[in-house]
């Protein structure tokens, strides 16, 4: 019996297992399914995945810890992953990270107390031609400057408020897309 995974998630993982000659190969998709459902790779989620995948928990933990896109700690609604690799670093990634950290009052790796933002430093996001770049919940925001980050943070806050239904009459601002378009 799984602890945190729903029957649908278990079924989805089983389906993934069937797609590979070696069922073990389905571990990455399985972890994505688990993370989408739980929000992060908690110990319970890892144990559930290990049980469904018929692997030792330690093997699953190794994979989770290897890939930065699997979160080993609880994360906020918006996970801001700022690239820390060389081209971004040259074009001011540290400044961006410092700015976000100042604005949110957290350090890289931390989550705001309201559970809204998590700030992470990650390896190359493969958009060096528009460095510095950041990924928020699987969407790219490029050519970042502190001002644009401010804009973006405000947008995200407003969107979250909208989602909570506190300002339902205001139009939903576009969050999807590049920052230039905002």
């Amino acid at each position, binding site marked *: 019996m799984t602890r945190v995974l729903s029957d649908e998630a278990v079924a989805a993982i089983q389906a993934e297992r069937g797609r590979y000659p070696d069922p073990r190969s389905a571990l990455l998709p399985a972890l994505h399914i688990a993370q989408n459902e739980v929000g992060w790779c908690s*110990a319970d989620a890892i144990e559930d995945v290990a049980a469904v995948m018929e692997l030792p*928990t*330690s*093997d699953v*933990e*190794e994979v989770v*810890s*290897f*890939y930065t896109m699997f979160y080993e700690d609880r994360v906020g609604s918006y996970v801001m992953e700022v690239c820390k690799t060389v081209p971004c670093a040259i074009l001011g990634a540290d400044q961006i990270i410092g700015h976000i950290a100042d604005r949110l009052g957290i350090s890289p790796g931390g989550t705001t107390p309201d559970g809204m933002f998590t700030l992470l430093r990650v390896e190359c996001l493969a958009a060096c031609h528009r460095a510095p770049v950041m990924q928020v919940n699987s969407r790219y925001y490029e050519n970042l400057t502190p001002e644009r980050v401010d804009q973006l943070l405000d947008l995200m806050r407003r969107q979250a408020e909208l989602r909570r239904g506190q300002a339902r009459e205001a139009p939903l601002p576009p969050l999807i897309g590049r920052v230039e378009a905002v």
Partner: protein
Amino acid sequence: MAEDRVHVTIDGAQTEVPKGTILWEAAKDIGVDIPIFCYHSKLGPVGVCRMCMVQVEGMPKLTTACTTTVTDGMVVHTRSPEVEKAQRGVLEFLLINHPLDCPICDRGGECPLQDQTFQYGPGISRFVERKRHFVKPVRLGPTIDLDRERCILCWRCVRFTSEVAEDNKLILVDRGSESFIGTFEAEPYVSNFSGNVIELCPVGALTSHKQRFTFRPWELQQHPSICPHCPMGCNINIDVRDAQEVIRFRSRTNEAVDDGWLCDRGRFGYDFIGSPDRLKTPLIREDGTLRPASFSAAYRLIAERLQRVAAEAGPHSIAGIASPRLSNEDLFVFRRFLRDSVGSESIDYWPRPEYSIDSGDSAALQTLDSALTSIDRIDSAALIVLIAADPSEKEPVMELRIRSALNKRSAQLVDIGIHDVPLSGKASAVLRFAPDQIDGVLRGLFLAAAREAGSEEFAGARELLDGDGPVVLLYDDSFPDIPQERRRDALLSLAYMVDNLRERRQVGVIPLLTTSNEMAARDFGVMAPNDSGSVWGEPLVDRLLSGDYRAALFWGANPVGTVAGLTEAVEALDFVAVSELRLSETAGLADVVLPASCFAEKVGTVTNTCRRVQVFSEAVPAPGMARPDWQMLVELSQRWDNPLSYASPEAILADISGSVPGYAGRLPTSYRRVGPLGVAVKGGGVEAAE
């Protein structure tokens, strides 16, 4: 040249090796030393440390000797300038994050990283940046401390837990420059075999918590010995400081026995040797309390009282119960002392299986005995069968041996037993039954009626038993989970099973005995005989309870406190003499207590569960006046009309080699000729069938 052999030239020297040999092993065989960290013969290649770079002619770049298999005509250079440059580079990289705290590191002095840096390293580092830092040390579990700064990420420990012990406890967390060794959710690393990672670690990252900061390797002298904690007889080195303090046990590879591993019970079970409560002088009971006395007074009293009892009630009213922990020499002299000097046949060992068999059943014992095989036969078995046996509990290193056979040589495992054991997960077929059904199950596997009836749960096990190839059966003849009245039937059914199986396959059996030298106790007749004279009568301890005896000698055995009602029975005896390491419950009731030396304090041999006789040597002096048991018995026997006359343990060995059936003619008469790895005596089973 045979088809399966290939020629290789390493540093100008030609050699011929079997096809598929790893280059590093081929070089080692002809004495060419290629430095390694991650490779280990028992763990297989992984190629992560990059230390074993060599130049192979025809290859564009350097290659790792640990992942390259030898091909015919290969020409290899291990000391060319390119190789030396690579070695210097790899070492410089490995040392980038290494803290160089050798002076406070327990590994310093026996550290492969230290040694190879001296031998192959650059001497200086150009790394001026900040090293990565971790909290140091962290407690990985009850036995191991982990210092992640020192780790060079060779994965040896991770591979040990995933490939050898298969408990998957240690993992590599995170990745790249940030990776480190840990456990899932930082759970403690608890395992029967955790101590092995201390020896596997090529740096000081995994160190023993128990021995932390207590010694430096260069202070220690090694003494080859045999682990005294189970009848497997794993080879060990006892490391001793200043010729008097036992610091640690380490594994000593014997391919025929332990395959190079040692369990934690053996590795950390040495505290009793230097324990302050060891007996240092003989004790004699005066006015109800035990007081120190001289040996001659103690011997005089024992002789007087035993001779008085013998005169009044006959010598057979004197019972002798030995511990199967004693050496071959001690047990042999104990039996001779009782039989030849005292004249008593009332002799047994304790703890022993708590059931007896009759003369009519002797054939069953002979069947099992003739099928006895050696531990390394597990490696070549096609089928391994556990019969109500848990190797992990009784003889832990046997578990590793079985796992290795199952993984590397595609053997199959059948688990016939009452409850799950750690190995059950590896079984191809599992057969569970109620405790009182064991004989029915073992016979049912072979009875024609049961076969035709085709009971469903038998099908899987039977199919495997009907296959081809050698079989090794492991059983626990104390049958701990079986009701006492069914144990004899269980043993007979087991013999029936072996008999049947032998008709079409090679069968070897390995009994999982309880105490280290139990096999020798049986071989030497230190076990109560049944009515036909073969050893397996009613346990003498049970008969003590019925009050048939007037005096008793307990030689290392401590049944009081374990056997219900024995305290009163022993108190009722006229005279009790005990030889012990410390004041045990039994010794507390004795009239005379003699201080014995333990296995680390004397020379001797032990016979393991597969009848391999191995030598242990004297590592430390005995505390106070403590003496070897054989010596005390010989000295004591001088007060009888038929004294024993052994001057040294080697003289006893010669006598054993000359007189004990099965040992005669096979066991050499000197310790030197028995050698560091021991000799097998009276090997039956698979070996005999071939």
